[in-house]
């Protein structure tokens, strides 16, 4: 038998109570993690008490409980009270991590509260080294629980004793005056301590050894994934809650109160999305910007998708793979990473003189179309390369020509991939500000009467080209630009808006809604094409 290897029992009993302790510790860590995230985003204000107890005290108490449980489990395992299968050591990586954590913790504590000067750093280094040794040298059950539990206890005690309270401010002695407030420090410290102790608790729950390490890794991965989803959700919720009051300003429900569409008066009046900005409006709105954004995206997609897909067909199906295709590939990748302001300048210098000399909707559409083009090309090319050659062979063996094969086999198989590319691209261009600032936007605020009406704008003329559309040549506005103008200047709203901040948030919220609806359309289209491909 190898040295240090222990025989484990196939079925272990009597560990259920100890395991419950470790399990509770894992749950506590997860709760702490969620609470500290919520506190960080000010969903739970740390200065307010919950059920009469200050939030800081709750965090501190739970931290101490968690630290105590972790240490107790580790000691119990070391003394043989709990049946586990620990490795001889927790490992160098864990030791280095704990060493650094303790170095920083003690360094800050000594520097803030004891003011020992440079001697403080010697103390910190010493403690950090000790944490390294405690992690690396003893058996795993002590090595991974003691430093983590002790860190938890230390942080918890700091909170409980009030050494760091809600009013605490950490003045940083940098050249620029900067300070960290308790609102930031407390959640972050809790987050870190909860992660460490949660990891140790998960290892303990798995009984250390290989299974314990797996549990520890699971915990870190799940908390990571959970926090990413959580942050995304918080961001959406934040914008929504801030945006709703502005969006519903002056809302009226009742027969005939809304503007009439095709001769029928709508039963809802929502001034924010149905009005423009005008001096005499009771409530200001962003209708021209919404319509402008939608037409912008439609125009850019109509321009870029046929060109991009066509180029992709040429590159994958017709062009011999070689220098030319490689150059095109490098060029498209470069174009995709080109800053949007460069596209804007191109539109300003090239398109505007060619479309009537002034900023116009069509210049904006084409500029954004140019931006979208490389992504559509790249993703369509990838999607077509992924279509198996067997399909092309099968079609050729039936005597079907290349173009018909592309049309009826290659492109349908590649469509879901193409749509994915368009979705990604639309997400980018719909929120672009810089290019449309240079090519499309006229006045910051456009009255509702000047909302672009591309469909209604078509006119028949007596002379060729027989069809004209002055609406396309009109300067207009779009949501991201309007938001930018509102934030940087706050101009043009006059006194007709109760709260400019509400107006801004409502604009951001509507922009988010517009982009999300484009996503929804795209995802729906992709789902449709995939279904058609796979199930019929």
């Amino acid at each position, binding site marked *: 038998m190898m040295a240090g290897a222990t025989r484990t029992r196939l079925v272990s009993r009597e560990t259920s109570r100890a395991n419950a302790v470790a399990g509770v510790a894992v749950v506590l860590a997860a709760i702490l993690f969620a609470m500290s995230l919520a506190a960080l985003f000010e969903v739970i204000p740390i200065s307010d008490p919950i059920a009469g107890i200050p939030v800081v005290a709750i965090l501190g108490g739970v931290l101490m409980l968690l630290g105590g449980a972790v240490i107790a489990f580790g000691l119990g395992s070391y003394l043989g009270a709990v049946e586990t299968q620990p490795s001889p050591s927790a490992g160098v990586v864990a030791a280095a991590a704990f060493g650094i954590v303790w170095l920083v913790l003690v360094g800050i504590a000594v520097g803030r509260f004891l003011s020992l000067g440079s001697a403080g750093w010697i103390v910190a280094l010493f403690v950090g080294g000790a944490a390294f040794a405690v992690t690396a040298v003893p058996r795993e059950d002590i090595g991974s629980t003691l430093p983590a539990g002790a860190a938890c206890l230390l942080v918890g005690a700091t909170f409980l004793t009030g050494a760091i309270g809600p009013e605490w401010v950490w003045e940083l002695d940098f050249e620029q005056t900067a300070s960290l407030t308790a609102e930031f420090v407390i959640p972050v410290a809790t987050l870190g301590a909860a992660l460490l102790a949660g990891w140790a608790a998960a290892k303990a729950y798995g009984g250390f050894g290989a299974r314990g390490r797996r549990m520890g890794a699971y915990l870190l991965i799940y908390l990571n994934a959970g926090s990413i989803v959580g942050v995304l959700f918080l961001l959406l919720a934040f914008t929504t809650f801030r945006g709703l009051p502005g969006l519903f300003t002056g809302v009226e429900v009742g027969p005939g109160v809304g503007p009439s569409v095709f001769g029928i008066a709508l039963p809802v009046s929502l001034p924010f999305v149905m009005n423009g900005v005008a001096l005499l409006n009771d409530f200001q709105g962003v209708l021209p910007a919404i319509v402008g954004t939608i037409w912008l995206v439609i125009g850019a997609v109509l321009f870029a998708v046929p060109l991009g897909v066509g180029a992709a067909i040429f590159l994958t199906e017709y062009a011999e793979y070689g220098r030319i295709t490689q150059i095109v590939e490098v060029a498209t990748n470069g174009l995709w990473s080109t800053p949007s302001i460069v596209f804007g300048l191109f539109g300003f210098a090239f398109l505007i003189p060619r479309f009537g000399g002034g900023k116009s909707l069509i210049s904006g559409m084409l500029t954004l179309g140019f931006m979208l083009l490389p992504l559509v090309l790249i993703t369509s090319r990838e999607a077509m390369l992924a279509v198996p050659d067997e*399909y092309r062979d099968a079609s050729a063996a039936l005597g079907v020509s290349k173009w018909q094969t592309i049309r009826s086999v290659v492109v349908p198989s590649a469509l879901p991939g193409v749509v994915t590319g368009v979705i990604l691209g639309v997400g980018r261009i719909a929120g672009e500000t810089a290019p449309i600032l240079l090519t499309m936007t006229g006045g910051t605020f456009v009255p509702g009467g000047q909302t672009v009406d591309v469909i209604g704008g078509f006119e028949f003329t007596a002379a060729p080209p027989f069809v004209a559309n002055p609406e396309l040549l009109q300067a207009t506005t779009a949501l991201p630009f309007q938001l930018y103008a509102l934030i940087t200047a706050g101009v043009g709203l006059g006194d007709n808006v109760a709260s400019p901040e509400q107006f801004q948030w409502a604009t951001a919220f509507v922009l988010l809604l517009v982009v999300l609806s484009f996503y929804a359309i795209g995802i729906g289209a992709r789902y449709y094409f995939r279904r058609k491909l796979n199930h019929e």
Partner: protein
Amino acid sequence: MSKTTTQTTDRGGTEDTVETTTGETVEQVREEWRDYSFAGPTKIGVEDLDVYYGDDHALDGVSMEIPEQSVTALIGPSGCGKSTFLRCLNRMNDRVSSARIDGSVTLDGEEIYQEGVNLVELRKRVGMVFQSPNPFPKSIRQNIAYGPEKHGDINTGLLARLLGRSDEEAREELVERCLRDAALWDEVNDRLDDNSLGLSGGQQQRLCIARCLSVDPEVILMDEPASALDPIATAKIEDLIEGLAEDYTVVIVTHNMQQAARISDQTAVFLTGGKLVEYGDTDQVFEDPRSERVEDYITGKFG
């Protein structure tokens, strides 16, 4: 003669192995080993066919005549050029940009490697079934109707339907006939609109055969059609091939010598270097091979 052998030996690594395992000078290929006389008319005639992929000499002076309405098996070790040979018969090798083809292939006496050959017409007359089943990601019905629709033989488009000229009945007849001929109708007739990728591997391969039949070919080329299938599905495909030989000329590449012996009327053995070594009646090739190397190969001494 021995000089040419040395040259081929120098070209590729596989020939070396052949020499070392047999441990003697490579036996010379004699013309008479490829003599095969048959009663019926010749469907495909091949003369001095050479194929190069870049510098690689994949086929070396192959000549043979394939009789009409029969099953011809092409066997040989991997990399011997039998698939290359097969793909020359409907000019699928044209799709490989590095391929260079010399020599002559005739279909019913007409040269297919000449200016002005209509590839669409050629591939309609000479169909092909591939090694791994490759139905399109469409419904079973669409898979069968694909070829005729693209050739304009069957028109069920929107315009045709509006003008009352839709060939829907003809399409249904075609789908049923092809699926019946491919022995698949009974298994799928209640789900013709299902995606073909939901079929089992053996069913997919029979669907590919049915799709191949849809354009009324005269010759069907099969490139190891059963190599990806289980024994039961393989048996079904073999039965099917024997039946097809009543109406079509079947040329089949296979790795499985028992399969070749079971289903084919004549067998051509390719050995390394892209050479056709022996061609003759299947019974004769398997029971009394004229070449020593072919005998070694068939009895499993190499390959």
